[in-house]
Structure formats: C-alpha cells, structure tokens
C-alpha cells in the first residue's frame, strides 16, 4: 500500500503516516443482547467497495478523522472530522489536533 490519504489538516500524505482502526462501527446503546454485543465486537461488513473508516494521523498532526475509501482501488473519496455528537463549547482554549 502506498496510496496518499488526504488529512483534513495536512493534505495528501503517505498512508504510512497514518494508523487505521478499521471501519466505523456503532457502539450499542443501553444494554445490548449478547448477539448485539458480538455483532458489534466481531462482525464487520468488510465491503468490497466504499467503506467508512477511522484514521489517525499518527506521524503528523495527530488528528483522528474519518475517511471514505474504496477498498478495491484505495481511492479516498473524502476525509473529514466527524461533528461532535453533543455540542461542546470549551470556555478555555484547548489542545486541538
């Protein structure tokens, strides 16, 4: 693999600079049944095609972001920082990756 991944901060960079934690999953809410839990823990779509993934710019700006990648061609269609689930308004400036 040698494709370039467009970091939302840094622009296109060698994929070696990033860590990927795989496709975006949804953590169950409340108390999942054992079946729901196992599905969340172990089952992945593993799509041959477009896939939403978590990426981390480990050797660069250290940003966590999501990217949509075609697993057949490694073409990355877009990369973005997901919106906060709940609005967070920090009253002091904080460390921003």
């Amino acid at each position: 693999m040698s494709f370039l991944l467009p970091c939302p901060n840094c622009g296109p960079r060698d994929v070696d600079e990033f860590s990927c934690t795989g496709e975006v999953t949804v953590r169950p809410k409340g108390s999942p049944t054992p079946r729901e839990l196992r599905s969340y823990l172990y089952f992945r779509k593993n799509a041959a095609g477009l896939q939403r993934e978590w990426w981390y710019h480990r050797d660069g700006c250290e940003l966590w972001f999501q990217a949509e990648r075609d697993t057949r061609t490694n073409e990355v269609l877009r990369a973005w920082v997901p919106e906060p689930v709940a609005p967070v308004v920090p009253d002091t400036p904080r460390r921003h990756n």
Partner: protein
Amino acid sequence: MRLDPQPSERIDRAEMVRFFFDGQPVTAFRGETIGSALFASGRRVFSRSFKYHRPRGLLCCGGHCPNCMMTVDGVPNVRVCSVPVRGGERVGPQNVLGSLQRDLMSVTDKIGGPFTPVGFYYRTMIRPRWAWPYYEKFLRHAAGLGKVDKRHERSTRFDTEHRHTDVLVIGGGSAGLEAARKAAAEGKRVTLVDEGPDLLPDSVGDAGFEILAPARALGLWEGGLVPVEAGPVLYRFRADKIVVATGATEQPLLFPGNDLVGVMLPSAIRRMVDHWALKPGNAAVVVTADDRGWEAADRLRAAGVHISEVADLRERKIRQIAAKGRKGHVRAVELDGRSFEADLLVMSGGAQPNYSLLAQLGAKIEYDPARGIFVPTSLPPNVEAVGAAAGDVGRTAVPAVTYNGAAGKGKCFVCLCEDVTDKDVKRAIAEGFDSIELAKRYTTVTMGPCQGKLCHVGSIRLFARETETDEASIGTTTARPPWAPVSLGLLAGRPHEAGARTSIHHRHKDLGAKIMWTGHWRRPHSYGDAQAEAKNVHESLGIIDVSTLGKLLVRGPEAGAFLDRLYPNRFSDMKPGRIRYAVLQNDAGRITDDGTIARLDDETFYVTTTSTGAGAVLRWFGWWNAVWRMDADITDITGALAAVNVAGPNARTLMERLTDHDVSNEGIKYLDAKHAHVAGVPCLILRIGFVGELGYEIHFPSPYGEYFWDTVMEVGKDLGIRPFGLEPQRILRLEKMHILVGQDTDSESNVIEAAMPWIVKWDKDDFVGRWSLELVQERGLQNQLVGLEFSNGTVPAEGSQIVREGRSIGRVTSSRFSPELVRGIGMGWVPAGLAHDGAQVSISVNGRLEAASVRLKSFFDPDGEHLRS
C-alpha cells in the same frame, strides 16, 4: 580493431584506462563500457548460459539480455555492456568451470540435453528423499548466475532519497524529452529518468528540468510512487503525474541457433558502431520485420562489414532460418535452404512496447494481431504513455512464431536467461501445464534476469500456437516489479535501527549494563548480577530508570468522566494528589494495558502506561475521544519526562537528603502524588510500589536525566544504592504477584479472571468492556490467574503446561528464582476450581511432573507492610 572516429562516438581516444579481466589487464578508452572494451580486445564469448553452459556473446548491448553478465569487483550479475569503465576494476566470468572459452560444465549441452528436459528436477531427483540435499547442492552449483561472496565486505554504500515532483517522465527518447519539455514549459516541476546509455544529461543542455541518467524506474505503485535506481542511490519519487516513455524492446526471432555468438539485435549494432567505433563482424546476414534491420545494415556497410543478405519479412515470406555455428560462433546462416557465409546475424523481430510499468498500475494490455505485439490501453488517470511505449513502433511485419523449418536441428531458444527452448514449452503443455501462468512457472520462461523483456511475446505466441488458441485470449502474464534487477542492498538502504533511549541511557552503558530491546526502547536488562540487584532492593536501596513508562496528560472539565468511561475503575472521585492503579480493557473485556493514574488537580490527570503500550494507549484514548468528543484533551508527554524509581528500606533516608519536602509517611503517604524539588529539579513524586518495598517514583524533565541519576547515586552511596535492571525488577514484581500485561495476560484475559474483580465499579453507568464483563459474571469463572510456588528448587520455563491426568489444564506465565524467598516462584492460569491457597498442581518440566502449590496472596510482604512503611 577500432573504426575510424565516428561522428557520435562516446570514447575519448586520448585517454586510456585499464581494468582486469580474469586477472589479465585490458585497456580501454575513457567513456566506453567494460563490455565494449572486452569486445575491442577480441573477446567474443561473454558468458555461459544458465543451464547448458553454452557460449553467449553480446546480443542487445542495452543492458537487457543476460548475455554479458559478469562479476565486477565482487558484485555478481553486472551487465558489462552498459557499465562504464572507471579503471582498476576486477572483472571475471561467472557460472563457469574453467574459463569462458573452455567451460567444463558445457558437457550438459552435449549429453545432458535429453536427460535434463524442462522440470526434470521435479521428476527425476525426488528419490531417494534423503539424497535431495546432495542433488540440490549439485544443481545449484551446475546452474545459475553469479555467486554472492559471503565474506565480502559491504562494498557499496546505498542511500535512499525521497523526492517529490509534479511530472515524472520515465524514458529519455524523443517522446520522453518532448513530454518533459512541454510540462516544464507549463511551469511544472519535472524530472526525467533514463536508463541510458543513449541519453547524456549534458547532451540536453539546460532543459529546464532535472535529468537522472543512467537510472531505472523499478516499478509504479499507487499514489504516484516510483522507486528509481540510479547507481548507489534509490530515489523514491512521488509524482502527481507519470509519463511513461519507456520505448520498445527489440524482439529476437525464434530459430535453431538463435543464441550463437554473433547473433545480435539492431541495438547492439547501433551502439557498437556509433558509440564505441567497433566493427561487429566481417560478414553479416540481416533478417528483419521492420526498418531497424535496414538501419543496422546501413551502419554495418559503412563500418566495412560485408552484407551477405538482407531479408525483410514485410516483403518476403521465410519459412526456415538456421544459424550454423562452430564452437558456438556463427559461421553460416541458412534462409529457406540457401546458405550464406556470415559471422554476424542481425535479427529484428519487431519491437514490443515496454508496457510493464503501465500494467503494474492497472493498465489493460491488449494483443494487436496486425503487428504481433501487446499494447497498453485504458491507463490510470495520473499516467500517460507516449511514443513507442504507447504502441507507436512503426510499420512491422508479424514474424512467424518459430522458423524451425522441416528439418529443424539444434536448439531454438525462447528464453535465453533460463535456457528454455521451444521444445521445453511444448513439453510443458503436453504434460498438462496448459495455462500460461502455470507453464511459465514450470518452465521458468520469462522468469530470468531480463524479466521477460526478450521472451514474453515470443513465449505467449508459441503457447498460443501450441494450444491452438490466440494470443488475445491468453493475455499476458502478470507484470511485477522490479522492472530491472536491483541489488538487495539498494532496497535495504542504510543500516540504522530506530531505537528510543532514555536520557539516562549512557549512564547505564557506562555502568556496564546489558542492554535489551523492549518494544522500540533500549533498556538495561541488568548490570551484571540480576539476583544480587534484586536482593539489594530488599536489603538497602535500589534505583531503576523507568523513563520509558508511557505518560499521558488528560486535561479538562470532563477529564475524570472520560477516564471513568474508559476504565472499569473510577477516577472522578479521587482527591487531587492521590493515585490509583488502572487496568485498561477493550469492549470485549480483554486487558490491554495497565498503569497508574494520579490526579494533579480537578481538571488534570497524569496517566502512566506500560513502556511498550504507550503508543497504543494514546491512540486508544484519542480514538474514543474522537467518538465521544468530551471536554477533555489528551497529550502524550512520554518523552518529556524522565523517571526513576528508588526503592528499598533506605529510600526515605535518601529522599530526606534530596528534598526539603516532608517525605515521612504523613508527608507523602502510600499512593500519594506530590510536587517537590528533588536535587534542585522540579519533580512529581509518585509513591507506589511495583517492586514491593518502600519506593518513590520520581518524574522530572528529561534533560536532567544524567544529572539526576549522578546526584542520586552520589547521595545514596553510603546507603548502599545500586542500580537494578529489568530482569531484577521482574523478580521483584513477581514476589509481589504484580501482573505484567502481555506476559501474565493475553488477548483472552479479563480483569475478573485475572484476579482483580475489585477493580470493577459496577455502580458506574457504562464503561468500555462492561457488557463483556457482565457476560463473564453470568457464565462464572473458568480460569484464574494465580501465584505458583514451585518445589524441589525447580523453576519451570515460562509457558510450561500445568497438567492433570495427562491433559493440559493451564500454563505458567511467569517464573523466576527469588533470592529473597530462596525458591522458585511464578504465576499461571489454572481452572477456577483450583484457585485456592494451597491447591496442588503438577507442571510438566522436560517430560517430568513437578509439584507446585497455588498461592493467592503475594509471596513477599502479603499484607503490604513494606509498601506502606
């Protein structure tokens, strides 16, 4: 030997240089290649072939074919036709027994032929099985290329250079130059690479773009990545756009005797006459499918070579060609029964576009039956093909697949590199290897040093004819990098290892520490006597460098809540200045790391992780916060701080001497985190006890590492201070039954079965791993991590099986001899039913059963009196 000065010759007749061939001096003109100088000296046989040891001479003079491979200054498989003479080189033949003229192994050509058909070693050399090593040794000796001198020092320094460019043009022929000029005129950053020897950087002048030559693009990868070999430097290009102008390779014709010395391709004639002013022979026959043969004939004529015959396959149908030779040299050429005296046969079977690089990036390759060549179509978006590489090869005839004729005698080679004949391919098909990829692997056709440049098209066309299919439906075999053979040293690059060292590292080395790798860190295993170092901690005072601990800051109004969600334990209710043990787990309930968490103030937590887990924990924290987006920031400060642990009964006395802070049990309690100046350095003191004795873990700015260590060693001298390494630390922590994540736990271990159920705060809402732990609770305990006390002085190896009635029921995860307790101790997993103090188990040690008893409380100081003292 030399012709009169030629208009475009590349030799400097005024300057002579000398090198050695087989120990004998050879003179050369400055500017020419080793190959041309050898030819000028009268040498015609340049190598012996791979399998049959047939004499081979110059064929392409372009660095493609295997015929001129020699060993130069200990480097095997150098194509001397394209390596300029520097002077002083020691050049020698390879794969010969005797000399190039008289190779004793050439007997395989005469008598071995019928006994060594394609794939013979798969069939005839398999029994008796024990004899294979001998067969193998013989085969490896008998066949092959140059040998690597294993005792040879690293002779060449190889560097890797990373480059970015807007447009990378591969190939410096007219089409490549044109494309480069155009892109440069548009203001782009342009680099052109050419494998030479035709293009000279200074012949282009100030072109407005960079030229790398001689240099070879080894392959095309996604993301516009193109490694380019340029002598001792591997350029790793990233290009927005790639222009492939790799031209076409002249193809040989297939006829009996097509490998004889004196059979050449037009490119050889061009370089010999134009560049090196050499007369390639005395009388020539030319057989050609395109204009290249005519151009060669013109050159030869001008060089004074008698042209016996020119046969243009576009105008004249020829059924049979045969090169007749004596001692491997061409003496006569037969065309459809007519014989011509000649010592030179120029063959031009048309030119095959060099599409390999394009195919590597996913271009489609299609057969053009009208021209008998494969051409690239549908290129990837960032790639362009121009010139001959794109299929622009001029008017050409489709030569016959073979020209054996009716009474074809003599070997007709499809693949010169691997000595594969047309009969070998036919035989492979007859044996059932009826797919081109299978036949390729069985016969090894196209798998030699030329990488199929001279045999790919020919072998596919032969295959198509023999299987009665057409080339288009067979298609090509997979094009793989490298496009040109490359030295492994070039791919390996510089020999550096990215090791992390603490700021105290050199002090450990000064003290004679044995250094080991732990993850990416270099750490002291011990300073020579692990047992004594461990004992010294119990008796007086030990110091260990723990700067490698992962260190994270979690800051913000929701920092405590964030940690509560990540860990099974609770941290939001901690008082500032206090510490808690922390075990990290994932949602599957598996233990992934451990460490301590200190609360520095309401919104600031200081998290330590294992030394090797720091990176993974940082990512884990960052990932969850990218999901949750809580008001908490995570900062890795691992390298910012050095840390040492001073432990032992004399630790408090030492601290009293080093700091004004009250270090009594009231001043700094067990599990307190306090700020203080120690030896004048700003520190965070964590009172924790991984090694079981009264201890202070002191964290301070890394640049003070050596100063701090030196000062503590000096101040503690009369207290018996002695450094201890990782190995004694492992003994000490085992005495306390403190787990090592990854050693005592694996990817199946959870906190409940790892004997830490107390750490789970079930009254919390939700935390990572909660649901999985609930399932463990529901199913009940299966196995448990316990202490093991070994009897009879044994220390079973880590990983030893715990057995009952001949079956494995568990395993030992840690084991050491404890000098303090004077017995072997360990930890291991046993069935939950055996997890009670005093339970007896058997451990398999070298086939014997050794007894051990289960312990649930730590071996040393089970009530923690030392820790809290």
